[in-house]
């Protein structure tokens, strides 16, 4: 029993870290511009398809496709941000929600057109397959790899936000956009860069997710709900909040499906509504 709980905790944490990589970008951009980008999951999907395409068509090793997934998702997102999204920063939240939902519809249809509705499996390199035994527990190698990558990203994001000049500018813009602008910060440029980085991370998350949850054209919609829960529960613009929210959701989801499979997803949504009613700004939200 204790072994089961440990395995569930481990798998849940690994899933949570995947959710963190997928959602941290949205949390920061939402906190920065109050722009509700429901197409965030679609950028994750782009990353996933980049990896599938690169591995299958060009025989690129899995590890090398990850930076490509990051880069291409970031480039595509910044193109959309500069041409379309920026027109909606001053629009109401409903218009933002609907515009980005429209984009997800289009992305889903385009993915169906090029790749079909089926799952897109990939073959991992042999050193990422199978499991290892640590302290009597059999842990999946890929999940360990996932946690390691996520922790590196947590460290990078945290260091980047806390220690670099760009990070300080982003934090200042999140805290008070007007004052930041008044002090001479180019908030719009900061936002474009943050948006690209955040969507790039979503792309990376999409590539990493293939092995855990699979990849099909409904990815953008399916993960949207998870990503939004992480962001809403964690609190806008809070990296620590996203981390805790993602870990909670991941462990809760896996544990719920393992121990009470009939009502597992029900409990997740109950938790979401409960947390938001007590703390409408999320666990770590400030505004």
């Amino acid at each position, binding site marked *: 029993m204790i072994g089961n709980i440990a395995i569930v905790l481990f798998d849940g944490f690994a899933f949570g870290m995947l959710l963190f990589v997928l959602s941290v970008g949205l949390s920061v951009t*939402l906190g920065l511009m109050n722009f*509700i980008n429901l197409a965030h999951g679609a950028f994750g999907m782009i990353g996933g398809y980049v990896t599938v395409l690169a591995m299958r068509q060009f025989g690129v090793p899995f590890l090398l496709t990850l930076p490509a997934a990051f880069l291409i998702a970031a480039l595509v997102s910044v193109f959309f941000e500069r041409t*379309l999204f920026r*027109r*909606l920063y001053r*629009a109401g*939240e*409903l*218009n933002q*929600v*609907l*515009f980005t*939902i*429209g*984009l*997800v*519809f*289009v*992305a*889903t*249809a*385009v993915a*169906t*057109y090029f790749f079909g*509705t089926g799952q897109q499996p990939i073959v991992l390199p042999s050193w990422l397959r199978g499991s290892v035994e640590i302290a009597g527990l059999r842990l999946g190698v890929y999940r360990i790899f996932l946690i390691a990558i996520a922790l590196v990203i947590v460290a990078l994001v945290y260091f980047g936000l806390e220690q670099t000049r760009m990070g300080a500018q982003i934090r200042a813009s999140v805290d008070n956009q007007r004052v930041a602008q008044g002090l001479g910060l180019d908030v719009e440029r900061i936002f474009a860069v943050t948006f690209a980085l955040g969507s790039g991370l979503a792309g990376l998350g999409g590539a990493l997710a293939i092995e855990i949850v699979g990849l099909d054209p409904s990815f953008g919609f399916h993960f949207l*709900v998870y990503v*939004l*829960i992480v*962001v*809403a529960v964690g609190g*806008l613009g809070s990296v620590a909040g996203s981390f805790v929210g993602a870990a909670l959701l991941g462990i809760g989801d896996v544990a719920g499906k393992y121990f009470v499979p*009939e*009502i597992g*997803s*029900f409990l997740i*949504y*109950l938790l*979401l*509504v409960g947390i*938001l*009613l007590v703390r*409408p*700004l*999320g666990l770590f939200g400030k505004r």
Partner: protein
Amino acid sequence: MSAEHTQIERRSTAVQQPLEWLKGQSRWSVFELLFWVAALIPFFFFPTYLTLFSQIAIAALFAISVDLILGYAGIVTLGHAMFFGLGAYVAGLLSAKLGWGEPITGLMISGAFAGLVGFLVSFLIVRVQHLALIMVTLGLGLLTYELANSMSWLTGGTDGLLGVKTWDILGYFRFDLWGYTAYGYSLAALLIGFLASRRIVNSSFGLALRGIRENTARMPVIGSEYRWHLQKIYTISAVIAGIAGAMLTQTTNFVTLEVLSFQRSADVVVMLILGGTGRLYGAILGALIFLLMRDQLAGINPQYWYFWIGLLLMVVVLFMPKGILGRLSDLVRRFGR
């Protein structure tokens, strides 16, 4: 005398007699009468499409219920299918489990049940705003879906609820294969729901709702308790959504989990934004455009029709923030001068 002058004059009388102004707003125009006459056209010219038009009338009633809270009171919701679905399941269960297939009482019971749940939920809804509001409505919608899914002994789960039998309306109109009765029935319900909503939005209560939408902070200052207003309209909206759901069950004699799905919640908001929020005809027009497009495009290419809906949605949001109907009325006003 310029047009501007008369407008100022009209405005000054509005300030003097607010009730007169409200009455003026609710006066019937020729276009409205024409629209409802046109709604009868399918009976005579498109008898093969009556089932589709009955679906459109039901979707339009559902869209009106969402317009009341989203367009007028400014409550953005991504989970309103929960009330539609509750109504659909109550009507279905009444017939399949209790053997009561009388349609009109079925509608009333379904609407009352959805309204009761809506009233309870409204206490939660008024506590949150912005992203948290969207997430709470989304969460409640998904929660209801999962609940219905896990209670498969009652709802039939993913297989759907079988054995629904709807009796003849008033013991006289039998539901026929062509959908004559179904369309007449849905259209009648749409008209009644529309008239009720029209009365609501043109009352002082409707005006208070618009005030809440425009500025939540200012309403208490002028002595209007906004939370109770929001709870009232949310409950009313839930009743109408429940009735729309029950209509779907009664006209198709089948209930699936799809009535509670996120897709349905999202679709109805899409319909609303296509037609134009904050105007009841926008909801009807949006449902008409959406379902006609789906019918035609899905006929050509079932997998990709969402591409066109998505594209249309983006174009409408970018270039017609007031929806297609809002854009049309702007054009009419510009060229009408």
